[in-house]
């Protein structure tokens, strides 16, 4: 089959590889009908996530049709249309049973690596480095899905791929980011980053009753999409002092909750940004926590800092005194995708949201290597790329 393989920083390519096969008895094989490139994939592409190996198949947002099931699979059968949560969970451990699926104890074959770095290991992820399990991802024509009775979400008839694909990651990620804000009537939420995760966070905040959402980015098309979702917008490059600006537009209180939907590759200018970029270039640090610093500083007293954006290492120069002084609450982590399957599928079915709004590029898998650049460099007003692994490449 064809698959998108990581070969190093800035290097991904389509390779011909073996078809996946059932390895454990609860595995299933899906024929991938749609897959997407995520902002998280860019961290791999840019070489910021350790323990990648050349040849790794990328992709953690994918859906498809079940073509084979292992002898112990009970709930799935050939022909089912399913969306895979990007987190792989066992369904049986203490964490799974307590709805903390991305903390699953039992799915990471390389748990020791995560334990070395973080003390504990969370669940494995599809296509996301060897410390996160080393599982082959879904930017391919077929994929092996372990624990097939636990994760895959069956798609009700009548819903097209593009509407349900994002149940794999960015929709629940944006939703959890908003849910973590514990929004009460009349509250104001600020969202840094109007990438796909930010877009879903904005819409989810409204679904959960936010009075106002303030969206922050620097790309016109992304801000425009945020505004279409009901947010007020700030281009951070057009204001002198973002924290002051946020105070100004919130009657001096600051936003009740702040969402960092940017993560470790925040863009910035000024001395602090220069400092972060240099540390990252010298490999002293993985992270440029510019946005997190601003978000902490801007958040209202007693507010919530919700962090869906990914961080990898030890963060430098965080204004912890400010966080402590204001009594802030921090919530973060890999999304417990399984927790939101039902709720969000119902919202899609009820027409409360059509997640396909975020798609700007529909391409074939063969176009993926180029699309990584387009998406990362925000060329061609790109916001979200979905790929069809079976479609021929666009005529060059």
């Amino acid at each position, binding site marked *: 089959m064809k698959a998108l393989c990581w070969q190093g920083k800035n290097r991904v390519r389509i390779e011909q590889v073996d078809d996946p096969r059932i390895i454990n008895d609860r595995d299933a094989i899906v024929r991938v009908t749609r897959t997407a490139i995520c902002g998280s994939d860019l961290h791999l592409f840019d070489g910021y996530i350790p*323990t990648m190996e050349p040849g790794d*198949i990328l992709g953690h947002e994918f859906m498809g049709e079940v073509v084979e099931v292992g002898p112990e699979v009970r709930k799935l059968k050939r022909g089912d249309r399913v969306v895979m949560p990007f987190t792989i969970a*066992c369904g049986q451990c*203490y964490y799974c049973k307590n709805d903390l699926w991305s903390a699953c104890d039992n799915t990471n*074959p390389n748990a020791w690596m995560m334990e070395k770095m973080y003390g504990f290991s969370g669940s494995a992820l599809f296509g996301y480095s060897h410390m996160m399990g080393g599982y082959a991802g879904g930017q391919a024509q077929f994929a092996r899905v372990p624990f097939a009775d636990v994760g895959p979400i069956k798609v009700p008839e009548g819903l097209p791929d593009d509407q349900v694909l994002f149940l794999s990651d960015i929709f629940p990620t944006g939703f959890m980011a908003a849910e973590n804000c514990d929004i009460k009537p009349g509250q104001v939420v600020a969202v840094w980053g109007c990438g796909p995760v930010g877009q879903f966070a904005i819409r989810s905040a409204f679904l959960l009753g936010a009075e106002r959402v303030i969206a922050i980015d620097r790309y016109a098309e992304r801000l425009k999409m945020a505004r279409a979702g009901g947010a007020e917008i700030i281009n951070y490059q057009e204001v002198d002092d973002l924290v002051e600006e946020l105070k100004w537009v919130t009657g001096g209180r600051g936003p009740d909750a702040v969402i960092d939907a940017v993560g470790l590759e925040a863009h910035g200018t000024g001395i602090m940004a220069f400092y972060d970029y240099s540390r990252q270039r010298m490999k002293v640090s993985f992270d440029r926590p510019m946005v997190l610093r601003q978000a902490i500083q801007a958040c209202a007293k007693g507010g919530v800092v919700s962090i869906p954006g990914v961080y990898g290492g030890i963060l430098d120069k965080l204004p912890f005194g400010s966080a402590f002084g204001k009594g802030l609450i921090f919530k973060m982590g890999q999304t417990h995708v399984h927790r939101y399957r039902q709720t969000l599928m119902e919202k899609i079915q009820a027409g409360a949201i059509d997640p396909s709004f975020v798609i700007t590029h529909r391409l074939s898998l063969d176009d993926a290597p180029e699309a990584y650049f387009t998406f990362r460099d925000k060329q061609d007003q790109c916001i979200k790329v979905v790929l069809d692994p079976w479609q021929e490449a666009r005529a060059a």
Partner: protein
Amino acid sequence: MTITTSIPRKTQDEPSPNLESILMLASGAALAGLGIWRRGWTGAALAGGGACLLYGAATGFRRPYQGRVRVAVTIVKDSEEIYSFLSNPGNWAPFLHAIELENRGAGRLSLRFGNPPGIDFESQIEITDHKPADYVAWASDHAMLSHRGVMRFKKAPGDRGTEVSVALEYNAPAGPVAHALAALVGWHPEQVVRESLRHLKQLLEAGEIPTTEGQPVGARGVKGAALRVLHREPPREAIPAPLRATGD
């Protein structure tokens, strides 16, 4: 938990250079070089490993090594169920990491270190004490590795199941260099215990040991293969038989 042992402290051998230190010197330099070339975290790890080996080569003449291992996991099953699973020797092979245990009857087991070159040996273990669903204690006095340990089962608070712990003390004649090397490939006693307990938990809770062995991959190249060694993954993805619990 402390365990008392009567393992006699070996007298320090006269330091003398040996093949071990020469090998370490070579591989240490190679690793450190690769690490510096690679940079990043993996690079740092490589360079660090290389430096350890170099240091080991410089200082690590054959010297007896004493160590202690303590690993605890919580398994969402009650202690009777775990104990009865463990009481069936037919269940052992899938979850043991790097070692094979065989039941020889009358409270005796034999332990084999899989097939790492150089540390391929078989030793006898004697169960010195046990209480069903509570603890098992053992001792072994082989020249390559003498150890005594205890595995305990304790009810976890709330509905979390059972805390299963292994504490053991060991004494091995191999030098610190051999230890560093063993750790690099996952055969260090601590890793043997930790990974075996992890697999036990995975089998009992999730019903399988997760694996990626046999999945498709793109071209790994020399660098990919080297990284796999560092990640303690088999250099080539072979297709193994499915792993599953047999005796429940």
